[in-house]
């Protein structure tokens, strides 16, 4: 089944990177706390990890949306 191909419903280049990034995030977000950090009883364990990995997703969101509203030839669009 070809879900994201063809003229319709294409993902843009940045969106494809975003999906790959999201999949990596989803795996690490569960795998690291449930393996390496499960028994770490300090703020430097799962607490710090979840803060850092979420902050990195939010920062990446700022980057991936940076071209929004800009047309390379026309500058800032009104809508």
């Amino acid at each position: 089944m070809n879900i994201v191909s063809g003229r319709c419903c294409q993902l843009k280049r940045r969106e494809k990177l975003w999906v790959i990034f999201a999949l990596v995030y989803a795996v690490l977000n569960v795998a690291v706390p449930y393996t390496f950090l499960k028994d770490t009883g300090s703020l430097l364990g799962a607490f710090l990890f979840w803060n850092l990995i979420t902050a990195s997703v939010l920062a990446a969101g700022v980057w991936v949306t940076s071209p929004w509203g800009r047309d390379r030839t026309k500058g800032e669009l009104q809508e």
Partner: protein
Amino acid sequence: MNATMLLAGVAAWFSLGALLSWHARRSLGEGMIEYFLADRKVGGFISAMTYSATTYSAFMMVGLVGLTYSSGVGSLGFEMTYLAATVILMVLFAPRYWAAGRIFQLVTPSELLSKRYGTPVAGATAAILCIIMLIPYASVQLMGIGYLFEIVSGGTIPFIWGMIIAAGVSFVFSWWAGLRSVALTDALQAIVMLAASAFLLWYISFSLFPDGLSQALYARQDLLRLKWSFPMFVGLTLPWAFFAVTNPQVVQRLYIPATVSSLRKMIIGFSAFGFIYTVLCVLFGLAAAAKMPGLDKPDNAMAMLLSVVPAPLALVVSLSIMAAAVSTMNSVILTLSSMFGRDIVRAFVPEISEKTELRLCRALIPVITIICFLFAKMQLGLIAVLSAMASGGLLMQLPAILGVFFWKKATAAGAISSMLVGGVTVGYMYIQGLKPLGHWPSLWGILISGVVFVAVSLMTRPPENTALFMSSVDDFIDPRFGS
């Protein structure tokens, strides 16, 4: 805290909100898009704040604090996963919803399903699912305020009066000027929520933990170890991870930003708000566990924390919890009323005028508010089950929503059957308390819903306008959202 002080605080907060509603009312135009979407002209900051206040309910300062108190750091993982997943989904879906809303003049999220799948039954099915799932969810917001006021006032303000006050405030903020009013009052409430929480953390850090919270947590290292089982983590996180595309009150907000730049500011503003608010709420849970261990009811952890801070600070924090509940409830009610008019009544009485439709929707706002109140008043254990079921039930729309934008072979029959079969499966499993192989109903529901969606879609024909629908959205997005 004495009841007079609490009621005076509520009156001051309500007056400020009512003033904003009155201001919004002055610029209110005519029509459904004006009333429910503020004419799609909301700026980035207000969009971000209304999205944040709608998303974060009283659960954060009561439920999440209690969950952290009793089960530790796993609750941070749950809530942070929700936040990250919301941002991931917004980046992919916000441009598409925003574009489709403008191209097809959509008012409700489920109207998009009707448009894409070529039948009003698709939107009506989604609308009915949302109404069934979200009325208990809104009722729990009222119950939360009822309990909070009763505890904070030492029983002087009874449970029922706390709920009446909250329902009244919610009704005024939403009915008076629709989304214009809700967006402005949400912005006020979001600022109150964040500022009050920051002040509370500042106070308890210095007065309750002079040696630092991290020092105090050495005695509670058990809370920093991951105690949540993997099925519990998946079962709780999975439905909430897709909240951004399955909960209509937040999806409807993707239609409202005035420009692409406003839409981006909404996502970035929500990201910042969500991160700070989540960290603060989890720290309150850890602080309460370190300072006052052994509470019988973990959900009382915040109320106990408020009992050891000065009354003015406790008042502001209590108002912020009420603000969180009211901003979620009035958004849910406003969205449900628009869905009832647009996706159910108009679907079957297409000749209805927009004026009559709007009148009907507005009349439904007090009706839904009263239904929520009556539901909450019963205090049934069933409400807790239905409320917990809400996110799982709404998740059953996910295959149909993905099909709208990303699968041209998706059909109306596939979308409708997946929502019905998934909704019934999740409802049955929750009510019966079934967890096959230890996994929660939402996981089984989404698997079954997904299989039904793909199988039925492959056996039926997609609507003729599918390619046109998708290319319209892509053509609208391409020049506005970069490569």
